[in-house]
């Protein structure tokens, strides 16, 4: 009974924090106030000050996380709405998703090796540009660490969203297709949420890129471990 009460209060706490930080971001759209960043920091501060461990918090937290499943499925909806466009640019999008996934895995693998990072950690970082539930499963297949994969995915997602306006400006990426591929292919669902701030086209491209990257990533992931000899 106390467990139920506790998990409900954790869910409510997460909801309240989410609505507060979203409202704040709508009022002041600064990168530092991005809901995922400010929400996470605020949540950690509250949990640490109340002396609640992550494991305990997740008794309630997993209820929210379980909605990730149908949400990934729901991505079929924007995909369907943009199907004519997707048919037209099918090869560009598949090509873009392939380049994004390959670049993401190769660059982090080579950088990790150059910086002499533990190969177990590097393997967990390989799927960092894939959407969270997919990255967890890919990390498991590659015998990496699932939690570490989530950390990599999260940092990539948050940083990608923050840095994207500057990258787009200095590398001159100004088409919806370029932005959608870059955001969805690099920063998965968080990038897709950011792409929605540009236009619906960028959002749709980003979400299909993310989905295709998930498929490509789960196929070339094991290949990358072999190529990088880890």
């Amino acid at each position, binding site marked *: 009974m106390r467990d139920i009460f506790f998990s409900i209060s954790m869910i409510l706490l997460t909801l309240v924090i989410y609505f507060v930080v979203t409202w704040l971001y709508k009022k002041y759209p600064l990168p530092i106030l991005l809901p995922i960043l400010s929400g996470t920091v605020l949540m950690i501060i509250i949990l640490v000050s109340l002396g609640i461990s992550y494991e305990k918090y997740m008794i309630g937290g997993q209820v929210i996380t379980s909605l990730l499943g149908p*949400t990934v499925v729901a991505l079929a909806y924007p995909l*369907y709405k943009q199907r004519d466009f997707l048919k037209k640019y099918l090869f*560009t999008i598949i090509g873009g998703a392939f380049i994004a996934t390959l670049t993401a895995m190769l660059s982090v693998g080579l950088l990790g090796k150059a910086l002499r990072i533990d190969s177990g950690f590097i393997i967990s970082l390989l799927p960092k540009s894939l959407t969270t539930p*997919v990255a967890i499963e890919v990390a498991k297949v590659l015998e990496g660490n699932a939690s570490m994969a989530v950390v990599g995915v999260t940092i990539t997602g948050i940083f990608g969203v923050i840095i994207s306006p500057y990258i787009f400006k200095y590398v001159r990426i100004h088409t919806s297709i370029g932005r959608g591929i870059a955001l969805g292919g690099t920063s998965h669902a968080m990038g897709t949420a950011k792409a929605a701030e540009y236009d619906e086209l960028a959002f749709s491209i980003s979400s299909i890129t993310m989905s295709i990257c998930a498929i490509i990533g789960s196929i070339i992931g094991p290949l990358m471990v072999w190529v990088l000899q880890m």
Partner: protein
Amino acid sequence: MMKVLLVILQVCILYIFSFVGISIQHFFSLTIPGNIIGMLLLFVCLCFNIVPVKMIESGAQFLLSILMLFFIPATVGVMDYPELLSVHGLLLIIAILVSTMITMAVSGKTTQYFAKKTQKREADQACETSSSQSL
């Protein structure tokens, strides 16, 4: 009130697709995650009008509008990695940040370049057709 019930019902339909996708993944022991299979399945069902878009529209729109909420519990997991604040963690974060910038710049720029090239070729072809028609 009707609207709320509709959204809940439609989210349940999405759950079914998620469940079917995960079952398919386990049955064939695929490396492609179940939810992605569920998504592709729903996409095919929508395209062939097996599932009318009206049946999932409100639920899908609702879930996608609060996408960020579902990541908060997962990202809070960072608190279990205090070693990210050590030198080793710093190197790890540097690798992630640099790789993120490279990926974003390379994928965005390359795709934009090829998309423009394709568009230009199509425009040229359209031009040729129209000029030959005028002759």
